[in-house]
């Protein structure tokens, strides 16, 4: 009951604050917040990205000079690959995991009740590869349960978790595990996902997104010291840390956000390792992108709701800025929606002067600054990220849509997901749905 009331309170605060804002101040001030918040965040991300590069990345050799780290004691590393209906992509994922340059690797594929022949494929592969083990879950249980079973069966303390359609770079395991061995306080390391599916505009825009926004955000959060989430598609964990926090939760729609918060609440550090590359498939249709981003937004809201009661203890103070950012992002979405509503109403009826919004376009000078900041952010991200992907600058022709696409998708997914999560009576077990992995391929280069 208390949780329900709390969820309603959170919803009222996030929904009500833009309304209170506009009643106390003016509609134009609300619109100013809508335009200045992205500027504000962009400045933070660029600073964080540059600092990360200046402090760490610029010292790392790259290209032909790049060397994978040597893992002290050469410990066994377990790669966990949860698979659900992965008959098309699973084999190449497992082969990439088995063919790591680091030799002491076992791979556990967890077949989560697939219905497409994945089980047969995995069994056949297990006969051919000594270091591959297969766990079949008798019924579909969801990714979190699949990962838990992998952690139980693993022979290693170090777990690298990847999705069933992701291809690890040959040195990715070494880069992911080295920080866990070298730093006792590190509980998880998140890798650098790079997009493979680049056939449609939606796919190409995301190439820019992963460099220009997600890469800079991850670097910034690492500089700050707390990470909002590890990448569910490629991350490494210390099993002892997972055991202390109860492993992945079964009822969270995004198990990666949840485990990141659980680990950090237990004072484990999470590192970002951009050299741990993992090539991933992403949605290439608007529908697929929408479903994926809605899930991400729901995941954020669920984590906020789960933590909002207990996060305010002084010992969790370092997570407060992440809570604040999450709340501000949600407030921004509702402020934008309210601005649109007031603008429409201003055209139809006579509103009190302080509620009127004459135009939704950014004031000319703000438009100029927004455009310039976008360009600057792209430029910085290409400078930093080109070492991981030669020819990245070419992909930036398509990225012009990204500022609009990112903030608009973020706007609408927040508008829908926030009330959906806050008004839900009980959280249910999160199960798989087959994601969009790009349009049907005919040519890979």
């Amino acid at each position, binding site marked *: 009951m208390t949780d329900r009331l709390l969820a309603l309170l959170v919803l009222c605060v996030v929904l009500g604050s833009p309304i209170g804002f506009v009643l106390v101040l003016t509609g134009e001030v609300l619109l100013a917040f809508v335009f200045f918040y992205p500027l*504000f965040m962009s*400045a*933070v991300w660029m*600073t964080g990205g540059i600092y990360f590069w200046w402090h760490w990345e610029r010292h790392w050799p790259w290209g032909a000079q790049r060397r994978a780290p040597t893992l002290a004691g050469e410990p066994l590393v377990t790669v966990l690959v949860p698979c659900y209906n992965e008959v098309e992509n699973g084999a190449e994922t497992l082969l990439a995991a088995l063919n790591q340059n680091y030799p002491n690797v076992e791979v556990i594929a967890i077949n989560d*009740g697939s219905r497409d022949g994945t*089980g047969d494929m995995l*069994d056949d592969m*297990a*006969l051919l590869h000594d270091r*591959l*083990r*297969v*766990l*079949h879950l*008798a*019924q579909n*249980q969801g990714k979190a*349960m699949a990962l*838990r079973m992998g952690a*139980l*069966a693993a*022979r290693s*303390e170090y777990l690298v978790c990847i999705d069933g359609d992701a291809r690890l770079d040959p040195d990715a395991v070494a880069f992911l595990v080295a920080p866990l061995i070298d730093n*006792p*306080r590190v509980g998880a390391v998140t890798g650098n996902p790079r997009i*493979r*599916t680049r*056939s*449609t*505009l939606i796919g*190409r825009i995301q190439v820019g997104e992963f460099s220009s926004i997600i890469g800079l955000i991850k670097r910034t959060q690492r*500089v*700050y*010291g707390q990470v909002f989430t590890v990448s569910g598609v490629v991350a490494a964990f210390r*099993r*002892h840390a997972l*055991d202390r926090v109860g492993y992945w939760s*079964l009822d969270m729609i995004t198990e990666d956000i949840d485990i990141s918060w659980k680990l950090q609440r237990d*004072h*484990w550090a999470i590192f970002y390792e951009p050299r741990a590359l993992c*090539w991933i*498939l992403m949605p*290439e249709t608007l529908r697929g992108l929408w479903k994926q981003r809605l899930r991400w937004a729901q995941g954020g809201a669920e984590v906020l709701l789960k933590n909002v009661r207990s996060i305010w203890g002084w010992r969790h103070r370092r997570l407060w800025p992440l809570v604040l950012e999450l709340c501000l992002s949600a407030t921004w979405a509702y402020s934008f929606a309210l601005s649109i509503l007031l603008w429409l109403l201003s055209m139809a009826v006579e509103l009190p002067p302080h509620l009127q919004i004459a135009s939704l376009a*950014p004031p000319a*000078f703000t*438009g*100029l*600054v927004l*455009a310039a900041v976008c360009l600057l952010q792209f430029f910085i991200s290409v400078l930093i990220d080109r070492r991981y992907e030669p020819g990245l600058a070419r992909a930036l*022709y*398509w990225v*012009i*849509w990204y500022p609009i696409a990112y903030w608009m998708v973020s706007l609408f997914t927040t508008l829908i997901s926030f009330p959906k999560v806050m008004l839900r009576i009980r959280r249910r*077990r999160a199960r798989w749905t087959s994601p969009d992995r790009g349009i*049907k*391929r*005919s*040519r*890979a*280069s």
Partner: protein
Amino acid sequence: MIITTERSIPGVFLDAALTALGWVCFLYLLTQGVLSIVNERPLGPDVPFWTQVLPTLHTLTVYMIVAALNGSLLLSWAMYNRRRFARADRRKSLPRLQDGALMRSFGVSQEQLAGLRSTDVAIIHHAEDGQIMDIEVLPAKVTWLPTAQPPASPGRDEVLATA
């Protein structure tokens, strides 16, 4: 590694045209911004240059100060942490997780854990609440048959047939 599926020429053309349009809008925003600065400045032969550009510079300075403040807050925090924890291990090194803890966390017996670790292929059955009901260790090649969903409580025969 990169997947570029062949698409219809109109589709590709549409993407390229839309993106070109996006760049045009982007440049329009930039131009409008510059024009508004130029048009709104106080004009006249007697108005000094600095008076003309001062309002713009003032606004830009405010943006720059806010950005610098954000950035310096983040950087100060990062440097403070580096200095504070430079030589301190914030956490003692934990030993490898013991089997006892693992068995308690997952509610499995030592035999089940040993069996699971020793095999290449296993089947795990769960109850509705997520508890492990049974672990089947398979010594040989199996042919996997998925169960109907949602399951009742499946028996072994329903889920696999040994080849």
